[in-house]
């Protein structure tokens, strides 16, 4: 098959087997993509439990409906489309309902944010730099809330996951051009929000 990568050929075989009910083939497909899916879900939701929920929902949905996959796009794009929709639903629900974040308690019984505990282990890190980094992290998290769910998705997928805008457009079921415009709007809003917080 000229023009197709070897991995895509393998995917096709696994997909066809999975469509016939071969669960082992489906699980092999999952293994190729699940870390990336979990990473995206974790970064979007900020909690392991919500990330696991999205992971579970995405792959169960994929398994239930793999019969509908018609090879019009890659499996990668298809699964990302499912995950993106689930993440968008999650972001929209967070906007509408103020969901309780999972709480954690320190040794004094005080609540703390899990994200604040992600420490910087890179060489050259220091307590002062770590504190500054956490404060900046809080500012960035606040700025990200200014984005619409779609803007947030595009920005996260581009900046933090490194996906191409063409892939992002396909995942969001839109064009690359729309994804570009969305990225532009997102960066403008974030820059304005961060500037306001100085």
């Amino acid at each position, binding site marked *: 098959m000229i023009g197709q990568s070897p991995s895509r050929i393998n995917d096709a075989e696994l997909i066809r087997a999975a469509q016939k009910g071969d669960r082992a083939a489906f699980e092999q497909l999952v293994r190729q993509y699940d870390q990336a899916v*979990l990473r995206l879900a974790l970064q979007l939701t900020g909690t392991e*439990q919500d990330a696991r929920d999205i992971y579970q929902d995405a792959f169960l949905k994929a*398994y239930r409906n793999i*019969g509908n996959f018609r090879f019009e796009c890659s499996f990668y794009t298809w699964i990302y489309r499912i995950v993106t929709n689930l993440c968008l639903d999650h972001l929209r629900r967070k906007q509408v309902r103020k969901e309780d974040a999972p709480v954690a308690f320190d040794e004094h*019984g005080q609540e703390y944010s899990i994200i604040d505990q*992600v420490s910087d282990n890179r060489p050259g890190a220091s307590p002062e730099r770590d504190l500054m980094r956490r404060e900046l992290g809080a500012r*960035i998290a606040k700025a990200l809330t200014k984005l619409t769910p779609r803007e947030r998705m595009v920005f996260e997928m581009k900046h933090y996951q490194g996906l191409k805008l063409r892939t992002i457009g396909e995942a969001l079921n839109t064009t690359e051009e729309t994804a570009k415009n969305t990225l532009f709007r997102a*960066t403008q809003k974030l820059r304005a929000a961060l500037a306001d917080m100085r």
Partner: protein
Amino acid sequence: MNCDWVRENIALYLYNELADDARHELEQHAARCGHCAAELAEMRRFQEQMSLRPMLEVTPNLLAASRMQLQEALESTEQVRGWQSLFFDPWAWLRQARFSPALAAVIFIAGFGGGIGATYRAMMNHIPSNIVQEQHQEASISGIRNIITKPGGKEVQIELEKTLPEQVQGSIDDPNIQNLLMLAARSNINSGVRMDSVDLLKQKPDDGRIRESLIFSLRYDSNPGVRLKALEALNGYVKQDIRVRNAVLEALLNDNNPGVRTGAIKALEQVRADSSVRQALQELAKEDPNEFIRTESKRVLASCPEID
């Protein structure tokens, strides 16, 4: 190449999304234009700033737990086959119709309304007159029952099923409303809806069925906020109801959220004569990986009298 174009495309340039010739032109322009060079520098700083955001990493434990959970769920999951696939993508058959002249020529559709499930339908059949029902939205297609080709081959009759969203209003004291809330608390995919349901059911823990539902939420809900809410509701029954006590004890030992476990310890403080509770607290005081849980377990053990 003008400054407006450069400003609109600086983000794409820095994210490597511009074609090679556009990249080159942008660089050439920025080398000549002070304003655009400053904008480019500003945008670079912004990118660096955003990259300083702490990134949550997928730990091997998280990946393994997710895979295991998925494997278990796959064992009881069925693939959608045949006409049921239209539930996922109801317009797929319309896309097919574009390529099928016979279907596309004339389509005659007969539809009728349907319910969303036996339980809900049974409940709705018994809605008393004091519960207000409102139907606002249009029905959506949930499946195709039958397709009949008329003589001549160009007309088609399609029988389809639709689901109709509805709204009900009523008092929390009404058993039908309570049934709906319990259904929502157990099975709604939206954790916000489950949270609201548990919050309302909290008002009626003296009802055995509702208490059962709250126990289910404490044991199995995937959202720790919902589990905490259920724990709050059950707090008053730890002493008198052994099922509640067992569920709270399980939460203390097995819940993956420290906040839920801390709430469980507080709830179990009131139980003074239960050896299982003491045994659990003793083990946690010695071996739990969470320092706060160890400290709290020791504190409760120290304050509890010996078994009667």
